Every structure is written in structure tokens, then in C-alpha cells.
């Protein structure tokens, strides 16, 4: 296997100290190659560590334990030139399509800055051409966009500009942290379509972070479900959503209101996530306190990832299946996907 583009090795991130410490991400291993462009969704409720994962991958924060590696080198040890490449190749789109704009400037600022700093164009005219092409790719008319202030544009337009910005840099991987959760539902499809265009036509891989399984189903090939900083389940997106195996994934799917009158959505009572009573360190399965299938063994030790048919599941209900042991046995989810799925996103997950 060639060196992955970006790799997380046993990454743990703890915020705070002592009593008030929060384990935002726990022993997370994950790699994304560059042979085939893929879209990997990371889903989980708020507070499950998704943004922490994104910020670790972008080098905005450092892991408390473990390593984040770009082309084989720990982010903290990148040379100046490597760091530059890292910044260009690994890009991001954020949740808040307003906050990412400096209110002082017109939206042009967001598009000209990367061109200047990465010397992507040799002349002003070329810069303009690049910007116009990128805007057109995400379905925007440059004449309606350039020269405007962010507050003069709609949320959908603002978010598509940030996608155009990322595209300018021709990255290999874009980490999209809830890119549509603050955008109007009717505009979501347009944004997701832009992401798909970048993926299919420009060969850019995506880590698509969301709390909404519907959009994960719509655009991703692989899906990782996080619960309190731990992988609950991972596998091909369609498989995981249609046949959820982890009780938490099952809960998530059942919680989506559908037009089906037989769903009895209002009736099922679910234990709350212990909001506010944050046990910083748990011994057993983090989901045990809410799980309808909880067994004595669940309280004792954290379940490993079991390789079931079609997915990797961290739950003792599947203890008959072989475990995916750390180090020697990482599982290639692309292989799990089998026939029917396009490409083979070379992603590996371990725990």
C-alpha cells in the first residue's frame, strides 16, 4: 500500500484537565489514500467529536495522543515546503457560510487571497479567469457575485463561493464540516451537487461531516458513525443506513421523521444522552447507558470493532464476528463495499 495522503494513527484529543476534561475523540485511526477520489461521511450527534476530527485533520489543533500524518510525516514535523503543500492539498469547507467571510471585505477577498498566497496565477487577468471558472463550476454567475459584500448574498451563494474557493486550490481532499446544516433546505441539493461535481470531475476526495444521515446517504460512499468520540459503526453508506447494526445507528435512523404514517415517530421513548452529566471517562461501551440491548459485559470494557457482514461495528451483539484488531488488522472499507459501489475509496478504519 502506498503512503496515504492523510492518516490518523490512534488519535485521541482531550480538552481540559482533571475533573472537567472532555475526551472529544478517542483512539481514532483512519487513512485516506489518493488512488481514487471518494466521499467518506462522518456522522454523529452534536458533541460526538466531528469538528474536533476536522480540526485535527486540518492541523488547527494537535492530538493529545497519536499522530496525524500528511504523506507519511507527522503534521508537527512538516518542513516549510511540505507544510505549504499540505495547506494547498488539504482544504476545508465550514458550516457557517457567513462567519468564514471577513465582514470588512467584499467576497472577492476570499477568492483572491489563495491565488496570491499560493501563486496560482501569473497575472491579474489569469487570476480573474480562474475565479470566474471556479464560480461557474459551482453554478454561480461571477457578475452577480464579485464586488458584493457577504451580507448582500444568500446563504446558498455564500456557501457555494467557499466551495469555489477550495476548488481554486485544486486540493486532493476537502474536509467539509456540516456544509449544509446552516443552509436552507431548498438550497441543500444545489450545494451537495457542487460537492459531487468536484468529486467526480476534479477527482477531489471528501470527508463529509454531518449530523444528517439523509445527506450522508445521498452523497457518500462510506459512512463512519461516531458516538462520543468513538467509532460506533463504519461501512458502505447505503449498507449502514439500510441495515444499521449498531444500536446507536439504529436509533439514529429511527429518529428521522418520515412521511410514513406507520412510523409512530412520536411514540418511541428514548433515554436522553445524559445531557449535561458528562462522564469524562467510561470504561464500557459509551452507548451502554442508553442502549436497549445492554448486557453486563457492555459495562466492563469498551467493545472492539467487529467485522460483520458488510460493516465494522463496535458492539458486543456482534461478538461472534472476528474483531478488527489494531495495527495488524485494519480493514479496507472499500473492499467491504464489494460490487455495486463505484470506485474503491481506499479508506481504512481501525480502533
Amino acid at each position, binding site marked *: 500500500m502506498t503512503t496515504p495522503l492523510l492518516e490518523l494513527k490512534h488519535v485521541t484529543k482531550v480538552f481540559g484537565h482533571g475533573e472537567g476534561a472532555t475526551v472529544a475523540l478517542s483512539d481514532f485511526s483512519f487513512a485516506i489514500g489518493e488512488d481514487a477520489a471518494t466521499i467518506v461521511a462522518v456522522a454523529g450527534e452534536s458533541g460526538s467529536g466531528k469538528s474536533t476530527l476536522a480540526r485535527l485533520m486540518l492541523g488547527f489543533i494537535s492530538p493529545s495522543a497519536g499522530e496525524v500524518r500528511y504523506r507519511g510525516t507527522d503534521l508537527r514535523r512538516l518542513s516549510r515546503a511540505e507544510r505549504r503543500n499540505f495547506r494547498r492539498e488539504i482544504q476545508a469547507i465550514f458550516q457557517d457560510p457567513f462567519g468564514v467571510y471577513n465582514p470588512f471585505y467584499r467576497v472577492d477577498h476570499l477568492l483572491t487571497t489563495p491565488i496570491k498566497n499560493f501563486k496560482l496565477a501569473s497575472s491579474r487577468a489569469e487570476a*480573474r479567469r480562474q475565479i470566474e471558472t471556479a464560480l461557474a463550476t459551482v453554478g454561480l454567475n461571477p*457578475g452577480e457575485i464579485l464586488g458584493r459584500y457577504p451580507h448582500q448574498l444568500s446563504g446558498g451563494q455564500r456557501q457555494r463561493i467557499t466551495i469555489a474557493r477550495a476548488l481554486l486550490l485544486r486540493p486532493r481532499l476537502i474536509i467539509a464540516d456540516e456544509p449544509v446544516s446552516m443552509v436552507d433546505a431548498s438550497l441543500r441539493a444545489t450545494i451537495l451537487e457542487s460537492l459531487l461535481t468536484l468529486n467526480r470531475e476534479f477527482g477531489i476526495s471528501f470527508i463529509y461531516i454531518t449530523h444528517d444521515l439523509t445527506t450522508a446517504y445521498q452523497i457518500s460512499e462510506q459512512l463512519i458513525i461516531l458516538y462520543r468520540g468513538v467509532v460506533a459503526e463504519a461501512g458502505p453508506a447505503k449498507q449502514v443506513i439500510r441495515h444499521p447494526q449498531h444500536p446507536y445507528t439504529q436509533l439514529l435512523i429511527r429518529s428521522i421523521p418520515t412521511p410514513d404514517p406507520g412510523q409512530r415517530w412520536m411514540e418511541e421513548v428514548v433515554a436522553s444522552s445524559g445531557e449535561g452529566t458528562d462522564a469524562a471517562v467510561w470504561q464500557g461501551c459509551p452507548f451502554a447507558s442508553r442502549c436497549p440491548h445492554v448486557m453486563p459485559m457492555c459495562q466492563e470494557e469498551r467493545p472492539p470493532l467487529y467485522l460483520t457482514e458488510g460493516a465494522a461495528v463496535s458492539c458486543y451483539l456482534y461478538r461472534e464476528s472476528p474483531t478488527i484488531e489494531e495495527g495488524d488488522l485494519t480493514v479496507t472499507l472499500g473492499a467491504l463495499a464489494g460490487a455495486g459501489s463505484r470506485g474503491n475509496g481506499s479508506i481504512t478504519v481501525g480502533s
Partner: protein
Amino acid sequence: MGVTTGTMAPALRDSVFTELRTRVRGAGGHLRRNPKLLLGLVMLIALLALGTLGPLVIDTDTARPMSVIPDQPPSREHLFGTESQGRDMLALVVRGIPLTVEIGLIAGAIGLGIGTVLGFIGGYTGGIVDTIIRSAADIMLTVPGLLVLIVVAASIEGLVSVEMIALVVASLAWMFPTRTIRSQVLSLRERPYVEMAKLNGMSGPQIIFRELMPNLLPYLGASFVGAVGSAILAAIGLEALGLGPQNEPTLGMTIYWAIFYSALLRGLWWWWAAPVGVIVILFVSLFLIAAGLDELANPRLRRAES
């Protein structure tokens, strides 16, 4: 909005200066919606006009001792009266305004300059540097300022000049700006657009100057006005104690002489009235300007008012 939208090759508009020019052009509208700022500016300009244009109209030589009959109450000839050394109060005030404002400007600029540099360094870099800067500012803030100033000013040998008093005041004018600017930077640093700037390949200094600084300009403006005000106050305090420039008729020195000659006990109320009145107007105008700028910087205050 005055944004033209052609479909062909729009010019890319992205520089601090274009934006500033646009803002300055739009300033007229802001002023109309910001009566505090407008009133403050009008008052300040009127005072400064008195100080700068006054000498063209009245004879400021009468600000020297023994140039007029002493102890005259206000009259047609001496609008603000005269004091015991034989100086004309109006001439004194006209001479005093620019001197006092000069002290304020020098001390305020130095204080705010140091404060801005330290505040940005501390706020943006964080870590040990920040801890040192923050503690230094906090410790200095707890020291009774006037006391230090008195000690320093009293230890100056020979004649005290306007610039010297300004420097003395400046030495204690940086802590407050440091602290407030640091906390502003701390909150701006967490904005998503700062992360975006990192992704766009910007370096630390670039982020400070191109992303953070422009957004803090109105705030820095308000802080500057505040710093000038505090410096003037501190300077007047020193002068009233007799530690100011004995040869220059600053507003504070005029008060010192009024105290020295027991003006109030002797019923020479105009000796006090002239400098105190001018100082009050000066402070009200500075306060209004600072509050107006604060409103500009804080859209939240703007909304809360309506």
C-alpha cells in the same frame, strides 16, 4: 447599494485601502445616523478652532503676566476676566487648549501604540508571551497611577516641558489599551474567517494586519479617544499639583495658579470658571466621540438602541 453588476470581467476588489475609501465615502451617512459622534465632533472642532483661530482674532500676548489689570471680573474688554498675575483669562484659555490637547495626543498615541502592539502580540500568539504581557498590564493597573506620576514628575530636574509631561503620562497610559485590545483580539481570533485565512495560506502577521486589524479600526479609534481623554485628565491632575510645565499656560497650570492664589476664597470665580468650563466641554466632546465610535464598532449597540 452602489454596486454595479456587469456580467463581463468584473474588477476584483480586495484591498484594505479600497475598503477604507468606500467606508470614508459612506461616512456622511453614518454620521447622520450617529448623533453622538456628530455632536462630539462639532464640540471638539469648535474648541480646537478657538485654540487655533483664536490667536488671529485676539491678542494672545495678554496671556503673559502683568499685561492687563489684575483681578478684573468678566467685562466687555476682558470677556473671561483677568487673574492676579495680570493675565487675560480668554487669552490664557486660547493658548492653553492646544497645549493641553497636545499633551493628550502625544500621551494617548504612545499609550495606545504600545497597547496595540502588546495587545495584538499577546492576544494572537497566546502562551507564555501572552501570560507575561497580561500580568504586566494587570500588575501595573493595580498601582495607584497618580502616585507614580507624582513621584516621576517630581523627580524631573529643572524646567518641565509640555513634551516631558506627555511622556510621563504616557508611561502609565498603555495598560488599559493593552488589556482591552488583547481581549478583542482573543475573541476575533476564534472567528471562522481566521481559520479560513489559514487555509488560504496567510501567515500570522498577515492575519493580524489584513484580517484582524481592519475590523478593529473603529474600536482602536474609540480607544484612542479614550486614551487621549485619560491622558489629559492625568496631566491636569499633575499640573494642578504644580508638577506641570511652569512656563506654559496649559489648562491644568491655569488651575494650579488659581489654587496657588486662593482664587475661590478671594471671590475670583472666573479664574476657575474659564479653564474648568473648557475642560468640561473637552471631556464631554471626547466622551461623545468615543461612544459614537463604539457604536460604529459594535453593531449590537446600534441595534439595541432602536
